[in-house]
């Protein structure tokens, strides 16, 4: 049973690990391969700051809220292990700021210690009159992806550095199941007008005195189009750009100024921070995550694709819940193909 995962970002690697963990013992012939044209540190996941936080509203998409919760709980369970540091996983507290009262988010009971901000705390942020404080998690892609890669390599999963041009290409080589975790470029494999770039630009600075994340919200301009500051292990990420439909991965001077000025207004001490890097990336945005099976007829063969893409700006936040769901879909495929070894004594 040959399974090919397309994409080596957080979605591709975690889906691969989840499937291998659950099925390699049950399917002796399981061969897992990862194909990607970009590996860490050049994936979209590497550019993300790594803060676990869903969008403000799940738009009634309870499934995604459950996947977010599953991911948080899974990561929290790893917090107390010595592996946490290697994974790039750590606890972090911080602020979400608004100019008006807003309803509590779907994730208020998932994170730790969620509460409203006190008047004295709001004094720190002139211009904002309402907000939340909570403790969440950081999962830095630049550590997590190598950690996932190591786990996969230890398990004998093979990696191929190539751009897959079509699902057909893999099936004709004898692959049985394809996991499509190609993020922003899924449209190249199968057109999907619902998948659009949500372009972001960030500035990385040295500001080790910043110990909290600060996310501001402008309900009119939309998610992540308002300044945010997210401290990581080595540097702090300044951001606040979300441009729907913009495919450019070039850094824009205008966006740089917008991010820099707005973040320095938010945290005056940042004026003294040294800029070490700048990056633009495309959030693979979609009205909802595409996580589903697709059976493709190829001659007299039925080829199976499991799609797992369109995680927008919350890929890290939702990744493990989606990986588990993808693994369940894979389990269904195995059952249908009668590939799952039946336990002794269960045959009638």
């Amino acid at each position, binding site marked *: 049973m040959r399974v090919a995962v397309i994409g080596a970002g957080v979605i591709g690697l975690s889906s691969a690990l989840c499937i291998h963990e659950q099925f390699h013992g049950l399917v002796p012939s399981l061969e897992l391969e990862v194909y990607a044209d970009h590996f860490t540190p050049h994936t979209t996941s590497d550019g993300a700051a790594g803060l676990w936080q869903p969008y403000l509203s799940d738009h009634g998409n309870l499934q995604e809220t459950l996947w977010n919760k599953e991911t948080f709980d899974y990561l929290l369970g790893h917090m107390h292990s010595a592996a*946490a540091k290697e994974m790039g996983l750590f606890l972090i507290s911080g602020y979400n700021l608004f100019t008006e009262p807003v309803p509590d988010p779907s994730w208020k009971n998932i994170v730790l210690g969620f509460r409203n901000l006190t008047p004295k*705390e709001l004094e720190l942020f002139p211009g904002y009159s309402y907000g939340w404080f909570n403790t969440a998690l950081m999962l830095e892609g630049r550590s997590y992806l190598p950690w996932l890669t190591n786990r996969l390599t230890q398990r004998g999963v093979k990696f191929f550095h190539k751009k897959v041009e079509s699902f057909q290409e893999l099936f004709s080589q004898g692959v049985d199941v394809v996991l499509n975790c190609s993020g922003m470029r899924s449209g190249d494999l199968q057109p999907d007008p619902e998948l659009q770039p949500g372009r972001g630009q960030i500035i990385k600075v040295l500001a080790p005195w910043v110990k909290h994340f600060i996310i501001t919200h402008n309900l009119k301009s939309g998610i992540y189009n308002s300044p945010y500051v997210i401290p990581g292990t080595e540097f702090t990420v300044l951001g606040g750009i979300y441009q729907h439909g913009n495919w450019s991965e070039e850094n824009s001077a205008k966006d740089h100024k917008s991010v820099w000025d707005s973040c320095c207004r938010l945290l005056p001490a940042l004026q003294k921070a040294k800029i070490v890097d700048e990056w633009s990336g495309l959030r693979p945005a979609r009205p909802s995550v595409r996580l589903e099976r697709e059976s493709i007829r190829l001659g007299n063969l039925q080829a199976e694709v499991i799609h797992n893409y369109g995680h927008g700006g919350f890929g890290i936040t939702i990744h493990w819940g989606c990986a588990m769901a993808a693994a369940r879909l894979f389990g269904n495929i195995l059952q249908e193909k009668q590939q799952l070894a039946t336990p002794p004594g269960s045959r009638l």
Partner: protein
Amino acid sequence: MASPKVAVVGAGVIGLSTALCITETCPSCSVTVLSDQFSPNTTSDVAAGMLIPHTYPDTPIHRQKQWFRETFTYLFAISNSAEASEAGIHLVSGWQIFKSTPNEELPFWSDVVLGFRAMSEGELSKFPQHRFGQAFTTLKCDCPSYLLWLEKRLKAAGTQMCTRKVADLWELHSDYDIVVNCAGMGAHQLVRDKQLFPVRGQVLKVHAPWVKQFIRDGDGLTYIYPGIHRVTLGGTREKGSWILSPDAGTTRDIFDRCCALEPSLQGAQVMEVKVGLRPSRQCVRVQREVLSQGGVELPVVHNYGHGAGGFSVHRGTASEAAHLVGECISALQGSSSRAKL
């Protein structure tokens, strides 16, 4: 008295902040800081500088709260300004956890720090040996940045810094009108205060930049305080010990206790091991005194004995001491105008 000459003995956080307050309340004063040690070799440089008050048994609570509140407000404004990183002042959130529920669930300072509340069950589940906890956000004064920033402001205000060991306050009477004693542990010798005793603390300064939250055991013995470049792991509270050199067994013990609370610290590199003697007293001595010897009088303002709580109350005691210096000046001006008659 046109320009009173004030000597401040001691260049830790108490000496420097007191000197600064004096320059602010008495701009006509000429201030000199005298100390055998300056940053990075003071007791303050060893401390993590967390604003979590220590309770002094014999100082009225309202006075301690006033000192803390004043200090917190002062540093809060700096943390929110462009100077924050240079001054080494930053906000930090975290948890204080207890193995058994404390008698006082609400400490006197709970409404001064930010967002003080009891920890949720979910948060406590991270610490199976602890049954109760408090979550809050407070400030940290990162040394040596903070002391260097105070020195810079003092120099800009015309304050002289002088490296000199003062063995007796009377040494200063011919050159200075008023002496301010911020000698910390040095007051034991300097003014022979037998009520002052060391409480030895050993700490590790480690490289662990992924630790963004503080964790403190309510017993005060184990704590993890993330600073700008280093995380301070502690500690010990050895009453009466004067030993300034680190102990290897203690280092191991501190590291193990901290890793039990935060396992990711296993991967942390220990960069320095330091020892400080907390200049401890049943109450902080913020007090005027007039020394007299052979018909000569020397006004003295004491500001020492802050023990484990120096950073937490430094600005409050500094401004009180500066106020007492003002009283000394008035008294001197009063007596000098009487002398002119």
